[in-house]
Structure formats: C-alpha cells, structure tokens
C-alpha cells in the first residue's frame, strides 16, 4: 500500500488561488475605510444568520413555515438594505450618487429597516 502522499509544497493551481485571496484580503484591510468595514461586519452577520436559518430548515424541519419565511426574509431584506446603504455611502461611488447624501442614504436605510421589521414581526406569527 503506498504511503500517504506528503505535499509540503501546494500545487500550482491552489497556490495561485491562495495568493489571489490573500492579496485581496490584505488590500481590503488596507484600502477600505473603517466605516465601510463596519457595514461589512454587519453584512457578514446578516449573511451568516440567513444561511444558518436555511440550513436548519433544510436539515430539521420547516414546520412553522411562516416563521422560517419571516426569519429568512428578514435576513435577506436586511442584507439588501445594508448593501444599498454601503453602495451609497462609499466615497468611491460619489459620482454615481450625486443627489444622495450619506445622511439621506442612512435615513432611507433606517426607514426601510423599520418597515421590513414591521412586516417580519407580523408574519412571524
């Protein structure tokens, strides 16, 4: 029986991917403004929350189906609102959102979140 293949050196394809991802990550950490990183943290939280709810629905049960829909829709909706906030607030996108100030974008985000959570709360049952 042949022994386990020892690979201290990763294969060329995976090392390219690793290098690319690593460059992306360090560049992200360096170049992204802190406020955007804060929003990104919230986005990651929302995504994770939605994924875990979906995993539960698939693995265990979708028994109170309305509850699943409400929770999942809450994650998805919040993600969409936050992503649009991030896009409008990003200084690099200033040329595209000339008529929308960051404060206006945040107000829209807040209002949208309130409406979303109102519906979600009622649908939760």
């Amino acid at each position, binding site marked *: 029986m042949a022994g386990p293949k020892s690979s201290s050196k990763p294969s060329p394809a995976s090392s390219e991917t690793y290098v690319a991802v690593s460059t992306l990550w360090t560049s992200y950490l360096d170049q992204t403004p802190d406020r955007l990183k*804060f929003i990104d*943290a919230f986005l*990651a*939280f929302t995504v*994770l929350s939605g994924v*875990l709810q979906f995993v*539960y629905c698939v693995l*265990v049960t979708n028994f109170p189906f309305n509850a699943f829909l409400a929770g999942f829709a809450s994650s998805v909706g919040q993600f969409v609102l936050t992503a649009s906030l991030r896009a409008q607030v990003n200084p690099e996108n200033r040329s595209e959102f000339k008529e929308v100030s960051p404060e206006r974008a945040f107000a829209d985000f807040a209002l949208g979140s309130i409406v979303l959570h109102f519906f979600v709360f009622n649908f939760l049952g």
Partner: protein
Amino acid sequence: MVWQFSWLLLAATVQAASLSLQSPRFTISTPDATQLRSDTLSLTKKPEPLTLGPTDTLKLTFQITESDEGKGVQPHQTFLRFYDKASGEEGIQPVRVTPGGKAKFELNMARPPASIPPTTHNPLEVSLILGSFVHAPAQYDLFDLYLPASHTPAEHPDEASFHVLPAIKHTFRPEQKSPPQFVSAIFAATVLSPWLVLIGLVRFLHQIDPQLTDFVIKVE
C-alpha cells in the same frame, strides 16, 4: 265581423253532433287460424278479460257512425289506448278508419307494434278514443287484455358507472410536529451564534479605530 261570428255559431251547432260505435267485434286466433275466442263487445258491460299468447292475434272490427244509426263517419282521430293501471304505463295506437267509418285493427303478438306499453302480469285496459273537429269527443272502455309479460329492458352501456362507489376514507396529513426540544435548543444556539460573530468583529474594529465604534461600545 258578423261573418266570423256566424261561422262560430255554425260550428257550435254542428258540435252538437256526437259519434257512436257500432258493432264492435273481437277475435283471438292462433297462428294456424284456429279461433280461440270471438265475440261482440257490449258498450255497457266489459266482457271477460281477453288473454293473448305469445303468438296469438287479436282482430278488432267496428264502425263509427254519427249518433246511432246515422251514416258512417271518419273521425279525425281514432286511437286505441292500452293502459296498465298498476304501473301507470300506457300506449296509444292509432287506428285507420275508412271514410265510411269502418275500422279494423289487428294485434299480432309475434310482431307487436312499438306502441304497446311494457306489460307485467296485470291486465291492460283497452279503450277507444275518438276525436273530431266537428263532433263531440268520445271514449269507450272496451275490454281488459292480458298480454305476455315484457322482458326487462336492456342494460344501458353506461349502467355500471352509476353503481355506488366504495366510501372514500380520507386520511388527512398528520399534524406537523415540532422537532425534539434538544435539537431545537441546539439549532437555536446555532442561529444566534452570528451575534457572537458580530460582537467579535465590532470589538476587532474598535481596536483598529476606537472612534468608529463609539456609539456601539463604550470605552471602559
């Protein structure tokens, strides 16, 4: 205007004329021309009920005249009515009458007309119905007739589809149950874990830029 009224008056007076039945006779004979029974019919009293076998023939002759010993007349409608009182079935058979009022009707049980109603063991009441535009109508009860019983009607091709189907026992889907509490607890903790991730990320950002997260984390 007076013309039309006078016509009506004429019709009314003519209407007073009545029909009468003269010399009704019947004969029951077998296929080989043997006479089983032959008689005249009385208009006041019905004879003994007639019986026809499956191959016998009934011949009926009569004459229709205009009010006793008047001249023969051909009414506009002459029908023989075969009526089963028990079941309510009836059949109407028109009879051809000559212009002189003479009529002959033949009923051959080997080839019965389609107007004979379905028969059972009960007798059919046979009566003669006369209708005319210019005479008063008349109906004569002639005799009772026993015919061979009819076969039961043929089964309709779709008859089987009208049978009673077995009762449907509907089984409802069982009620949905919650998973066991232990499993629920684990997954509740799993779904709430992103909050820990979020807190960790915010703490990390606070380390990088304390001013950013002032409204979230109070610097202790």
